[in-house]
C-alpha cells in the first residue's frame, strides 16, 4: 500500500497504490462489484448477501491502483 502523498529520496512522488475495486462472483455470475475510494478504512471490511443456487466456487477479486490484481476463491457445497 502506498498513499500517493510520500516522496522518495530524490523528491519524486511515489505513485498511489491502494485497492480501488473489489468484486465477488459465483460461477461467473456477479454478486457485487464495489468501487473503493480512499475514504474506505484500512483493512477493508465488506458484508453482503448472495444467492447460491447450487454447489460451486466463489471468486473474490481485488484491483490495485498499480495494476496488480489479487484473487482468491472459496468452495461452497449446497447439501
Amino acid at each position, binding site marked *: 500500500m502506498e498513499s500517493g502523498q510520500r516522496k522518495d529520496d530524490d523528491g519524486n512522488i511515489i505513485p498511489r497504490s491502494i485497492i480501488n475495486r473489489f468484486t465477488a462472483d459465483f460461477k461467473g455470475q*456477479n454478486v*457485487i462489484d464495489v468501487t473503493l475510494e480512499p*475514504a*474506505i*478504512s484500512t483493512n477493508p471490511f465488506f458484508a*453482503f*448477501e448472495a*444467492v*447460491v443456487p447450487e454447489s460451486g466456487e466463489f471468486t473474490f477479486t481485488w484491483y490495485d491502483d498499480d495494476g496488480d490484481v489479487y484473487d482468491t476463491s472459496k468452495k461452497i457445497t449446497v447439501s
Partner: protein
Amino acid sequence: MHLRQASQVRLLFASLTDDAIAAFTGGAELGSGAITLTAPEIAENGNTVPIGVDVPGATQITLFADGNPVPNVATFNFGPISASRSASTRIRLAATQNVVAVAKMEDGSFQMAKAKVKVTIGGCGG
C-alpha cells in the same frame, strides 16, 4: 482555525458533495423512504466507522461523506445473484459530518438518505 474559515471550508465541502451526487444522478430528483442507512450516532474513531445500507430494489448504491476532503466513499453495484440490496463496510470520516447514501433504483429513479455522525477523533491522520 478561524470560525469563518471553518464555515467556508464546510460550505466548500458541502458543494463538493452536491456536485458528486449530481454527477451520480445526472441531476435527477431524489426521493426518500426506501433507504435504510445504519450509522453510529457517535464514532469515537473516525478511522473506522461502521456503515450499513439496505435499499430493496436498488441496482447501485453510492456513499458520500460531506465533510471529507473527497466526498466519494464507495459505490456498490449489485449483480444478478445478489440476494439482498444491502451491504456494510467501514469508512473514514475526517470530522463530524453527514454520511449520505444515494441509490439508483431498478426503475431508474434515485433515493437518498442522510445520517449525521459525530466524530471524536478524525480519520485523516494527525
